[in-house]
Every structure is written in C-alpha cells, then in structure tokens.
C-alpha cells in the first residue's frame, strides 16, 4: 500500500527566487525505509518538512503540487492533524526539548497532553516509547541533563508516543558524537523492525546503505534518482551531486567486485565481503 504519494511538488521559501523543491514526484510503500541523500542545500530538510506540512504551513512562501500521507493531503490540512500520522525528528536535540517539563517522562507526555490523549492511554504509550528507545532508566531525569544521544532518543520517543505511521528523521545524528550516533541509529533500526515507515535524510552513506530499502538522491531541489542503495551508489556521476558512495562501494569499484548476477557494486559491508570472496574464487 502506498503510504506517501508526492506529485509535482514545488516549493519556494519566502523572499527567495529559486525553487527549493522542483517538480518532485515519488511514492513510498508502507513499512519501507527510505534514505534521502544529497549535498547541503539540495533540499533534504525542505522535503522532510514538506512531508509533515511545516512546508508550507510554518514558513509560507510559494507552494505547488500535492503531498498525500496516509490519505491526508498535507497542503490542505493542519500540522496538528498531520502530526497524528507523520512524526519528525530534527538535527539539533537541544532545540527539540520543549523546555517546559521537568522530567523525561513529562517531556514525552507533552504532545499527548496537547492532543488530548486520555491519561491511562498516555501512560501506556509513554512506557512503550521509553522501552523501545531504551530510555526507561532516564525517565525521571531532567531533559537538559541528558547527553546528546540520550536527548535525541528522548526526542524520538516523544514522537513515537504520538503513534504516527511514518517517522521522518532529518539528519538525526549530525550533531552527535560517534557513541550517541550509534545509539540513535540502533533506535531507528528498531522502529523500522516494528513496521514503521521511516524516512531519513542522512549524510553518513554507510548508514544509509545499511538501513535503507531505497535511496532518494536530491540535487538542487530535483529528484535525480530513487532506487535500491546499490544502484544509486553505483552511479558514475555521484561526485557531480556532491556525495561520495559508501566506502565499501568505493573499494569494490576499485577492485571491480560486483554483486553476484547484477551490474552493481555492493553498498554494505556484508555484500562487499560476499562480492570480494566470490571474486577471489
């Protein structure tokens, strides 16, 4: 089933002339894990925010085309309505803390209180979200006392508790140290295993290749490619779009080790090992 349908999406920020998103069209199946890649200002963040209606409702500006998430047309709906279907996690864990709550537990409750979720159900949902993100030991801590990785997991838990079908992550680890990043990636993986549709903009290509079912390559607001990671990362013109393939792809390319029976180079460690072993034999 198609859970996201984007048709001819165009967007221009206020006071600017160039299109940040230019005639984008694509569809996402329920339960898929999609990686969005591209260099800075390619439109990754804008696209992420268009999926939940912050583009155009927060910024305004010029908007054209349609985005439909789980049957709801984003351009014609309130962000509060859309946020029951789509959740978004931003780059900076610090600015996502509401600042009005004294504990992690209360912080996660914030969105549920606003949406009017009954108290008993609220507690169930928070407990489940804390468990899923392995945040139970921190539930009584003050939100600002957490490490970056913990704070970002709290941000994800806050969104998960709202029970969206789709979660959008906009470079969720770009401001974290390696350990914090690893914690967050593991958490995202567990969401995907639970059957959620995950959309993640990311510049660590190894991670994209490892998790994503399909990769969406953006350049200057246009969709360049939308396909399996090994196909996108095997393109010869990647550097033209300001991105580098995963290191495994580069190595296999240099050694000319392709995936068995396919014209593409491996994008993950596993695939690369297999291809290299096969090539030796």
């Amino acid at each position: 089933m198609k859970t996201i349908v984007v048709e001819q999406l165009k967007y221009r920020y206020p006071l600017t002339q160039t299109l940040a998103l230019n005639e984008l069209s694509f569809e996402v199946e329920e339960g898929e894990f999609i990686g969005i890649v591209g260099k800075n200002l390619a439109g990754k963040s804008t696209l992420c925010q268009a999926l939940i209606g912050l583009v155009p409702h927060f910024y305004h500006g010029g908007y054209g085309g349609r985005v439909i998430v789980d049957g709801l047309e984003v351009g014609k709906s309130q962000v509060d309505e859309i946020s029951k279907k789509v959740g978004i996690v931003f780059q900076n864990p610090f600015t996502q803390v509401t600042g009005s709550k004294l504990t992690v537990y209360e912080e996660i409750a914030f969105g549920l209180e606003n949406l009017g979720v009954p108290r008993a159900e609220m507690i169930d949902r928070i407990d489940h979200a804390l468990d899923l993100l392995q945040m139970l030991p921190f539930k009584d801590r003050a939100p600002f006392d957490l490490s970056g990785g913990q704070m970002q997991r709290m941000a994800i838990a806050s969104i998960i508790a709202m029970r969206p079908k789709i979660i959008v992550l906009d470079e969720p680890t770009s401001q974290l140290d390696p350990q914090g990043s690893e914690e967050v990636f593991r958490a995202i993986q567990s969401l995907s295993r639970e059957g959620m549709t995950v959309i993640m903009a990311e510049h660590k290509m190894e991670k994209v290749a490892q998790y994503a079912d399909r990769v969406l390559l953006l350049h200057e607001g246009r969709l360049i490619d939308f396909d399996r990671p090994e196909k996108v990362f095997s393109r010869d013109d990647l550097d033209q779009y300001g991105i580098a393939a995963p290191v495994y792809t580069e190595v296999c390319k240099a050694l000319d080790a392709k995936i068995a029976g396919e014209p593409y180079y491996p994008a993950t460690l596993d695939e690369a090992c297999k291809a290299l072993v096969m090539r030796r034999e």
Partner: protein
Amino acid sequence: MSANQSIWSFRFSVAAIVLIPVAVGINYIGKLFAGALKLPLWLDAIGTVLSSMLAGPIIGALSGLINNIIYGLTVDPISFIYALTSVFMGLVAGYMAFKGWISSWGKAVVVGLAVGITAVVISTPLNVWFWGGQTGNFWGDALFTYVMSQTGSTWLASFLDELVVDLPDKVITVLAAYGIYRILPQSLTMLYKNNNKTESI
C-alpha cells in the same frame, strides 16, 4: 486597515510565542551583564523591546508582563507591582515599531524617549501608592527629597525622581534592542509576524 488589525491580533505564530521566554531571558541577561560590568543602568528590558519590534505590541506586552511575573516569582516579589509598566512599554515600543519608527538610529531615539516617558508615567503613580513616591535609587531619591522640601508636591517630586532614573535607561535599552534588530536576517524576523500567506505556484 488590515495591517492595523493584524498588529493587535491575539492569534500568534508559534515562533512569536517561543519568542516570549527568550525575550524574558534577554531581559535577565541584560540586567546580569549590566550588573557585572557595573554600568549605572538597569538595561533589564532589552528583550521586551526587541520582542515588540519583532512580533508587535501584544507579544511585547506579554513579554513584559511575564518578565515581571517570573522575576517576581524567582528573585524579587516587588517586581509584580511594576508589571503594569512593562506591559505599557511593550505596547508603545511595538506600536511605534510597526508604524515605521525603527528605520534609523535617529527614529529609534524617538522610540526610546517615548518608551521612557511611558515608563515614567506608569511607574510614578505606582511609586506614590507603594512607596509614597520614592524609587529606591539613591540619586533619584535625593532629588525627590530636594524637590519635595522645595515645592511640597509629592507627585512632582516622584515624577522627577522616576524621570532621571528611567529615561536614560530606556533610551539606551531601545537603542540596544534596535542594534540587535537591525542585524537579524529577514528569513528569521518574518517568522514572528502573523500576516504571511502561502501562494500557489
């Protein structure tokens, strides 16, 4: 007319709401720095005035009100009494800003004088009611004593007491806020206004 309606509207953007706690924080930090540098000024309303310039008189007034409530709850309960002064400073600064009075340093000085006189006019009755006319500032109260002993008028003495204390402070406060306002990118400042529309392309 429509622009006029939108500056008095109570329907704020989320960015404008989030601006209020930051405005209160800027007030607090301004006061802290002024104290640490031993400046002979309070400079404790820069955030209120800045929020007025960015988001209009209502947000400015709310910033002022909440500033004094929070300050009253955390530092000094007397600040509750002067919440009214902060509210009017926010209203005047916001109204003048949206009428185009923050397009140059010269005009900003006029806004500063207007905000200062507003503060004096609102605070004087509060001083008379609460303290019998004094302000608790040494030089101001010395003037108060002199004027009262010469003229016998509590109101005149209190007005002048407040004037010498407040007017220079508020002019510099408004200029500081304007100095910050000028350098903010437009992509940020437009988020605080509530008159934006999405157009179809």
